[in-house]
């Protein structure tokens, strides 16, 4: 049985890593393991933007060359971007079993609000599901409440559910027998 290996780039909030480790099993039916592996971020740093290049982090993940069909999910506290976009919440290799998620803009404190540990976990769960959905071959969904809806602001992340619409779920079921449908 394939599994999801969860790693961090630099230090990432441990509670988020372990939370995802526990709920992603419920969502995917794949065993999830948090690995004590803090990958180096420095090679992805973009000096002029004070951000990290998410595609380079994905390359580092792929370089781990997971055996068989294992999946990789990288989490980071760093602010991510791709050169053409001012920021991204995460990035995945489409149908490539690897994804990276940034917690930076998922934290309420980034928006000048009080830290909210529960909200951070909920947002991280939705973004991890979203990026893993891409890594399973799904594209963005028009249903604003589906985990595969495109979010360009954190409020849109909050509108989504940590679950997939019927159409996206249908596509996922061959890979994740327990893919969650919306309530």
């Amino acid at each position, binding site marked *: 049985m394939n599994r999801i290996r969860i790693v961090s780039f630099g230090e990432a909030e441990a509670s988020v890593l372990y939370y995802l480790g526990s709920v992603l099993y419920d969502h995917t039916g794949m065993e999830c393991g948090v690995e004590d592996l803090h990958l180096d971020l420095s090679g992805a740093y973009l000096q002029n933007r004070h951000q990290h290049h998410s595609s380079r982090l994905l390359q580092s993940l792929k370089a781990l060359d997971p055996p068989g069909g294992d999946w990789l999910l990288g989490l980071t506290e760093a602010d991510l971007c791709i050169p053409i*976009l001012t920021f991204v919440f995460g990035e995945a290799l*489409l149908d490539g079993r690897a994804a990276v998620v940034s917690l930076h*803009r998922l934290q309420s404190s980034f928006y000048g609000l009080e830290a909210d*540990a529960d909200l951070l976990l909920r947002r991280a769960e939705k973004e991890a599901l979203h990026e893993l959905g891409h890594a399973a071959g799904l594209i963005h969904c028009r249903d604003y409440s589906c985990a595969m809806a495109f979010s360009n602001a954190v409020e849109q992340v909050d509108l989504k559910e940590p679950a997939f619409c019927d159409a996206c779920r249908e596509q996922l079921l061959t890979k994740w027998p327990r893919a969650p*449908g919306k309530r």
Partner: protein
Amino acid sequence: MTYKPWMLIVDDEMVVRDSLQAWFRDAGYQADVASSGKEALERMSRQEYDVYLLDIKMAGMDGLELQTRIRKIKQDAAIIIMTAYASVDTAVQALKQGAFDYIVKPFDPDDLEHVVRNAVEKQALQRENVAMKTTLKEIDHFPDIVGESSAIRKVLELIKVVAPTDATVLIRGESGTGKELVAKAIHLASPRRYMPLVTVNCGALPESLLESELFGHERGAFTGAQYRRKGKFEMADGGTIFLDEVGDVSLKTQTDLLRVLEEKQICRVGGSRMMPVDFRVVAATHKDLQGLVGSGEFREDLFYRLNVFQISLPPLRERPEDIPLLIQSFIEKASRQMGKVVTGVSPEAMALLKRRPWPGNIRELQNAVERAVVLAQSEELTAEDLAFGDEAGAPRAQNGDAALSLADVEKIHIERVLQQSAWNISLSARVLGIDRATLYNKIKRYGLTQSKV
């Protein structure tokens, strides 16, 4: 199969081409790239594109020239010019020459999505050369609202009547009667159903955060605001805003709400621009708003603005004939979600369920059924699975419990539920009536571990 629009990205920087192409693929478009104007024109001979993204500064043929060449081949092409800050003037020139829009590098994801979606929609309209078709079918089925009693049939009728209009709806009913489900049904049966339904739990809004929550804020609006934030009204643009527990808001908040409902315009905190927003309002309350108006606790003008069309939800005790149907529906839903085979209820358990007064209404009934499905050992729910606080088999107060703090009791209860569900976080959270994230943080706070149990 849904049509996937074709994009052509023309830029001499490889990193731009690659990242945009990946972004478009994730977003469900088909995208080709070209590194020069010449290559772009060659590609056009093999593939018809819906939208063109052209970098303005390229060696050889620049974006402006390429735009002119593309227009000669395809007069109605939707062209988006990509530019750096330094060349915004040239982008304006491109607009004058008929570009659809321009976008400044690096793109804000929000801007990119809007510009591209608008361009695609424009193309789709041109291609079909027809007015936007209204495909709204009459919806007369609301699967989430279960029941056959005359009281619930009347509610369904009212939803059907009001949903297609844009009228403001006030839903009244005790806690747990399904006010949010009715709001959702109204939204889903309205022409706004493809846009968001945004819920604002008015009772839970702390006064201090209210403005930012409702209207959003601009970057730098206050210390720590590093990035702009959209408010609930802005998020509901084009859709429906559901003001839940509207009777709980303070008089100051009522004034703010009234203003935005009347003007349909918002201004983000720290911003100077008034933004028009298009939303439909559905509000709900468990309180007697008219009574609150009489006692001066609720603004009369706001009450009349909300009370355009009223739907009153009956408490569960007034429609006991719906209880078996509701139970069956909750069993089906819960067993499907939990992957368990539970198909019905034993006669004793049904009698027990029908006898209860359900002060917490449908929500309480649903929680009881879900909890029973978690505990069920057979295909039928039994009386033992229904661990009511006052029934046999229920967790009873232990001697000495009175000396425990609320936190101790919570810890013990969470531990017990986790044990019963074999530490399945999702199931336990559902039984406890909290979300997974909250449960997880409580497990961490109380230091609960699987081995300890």
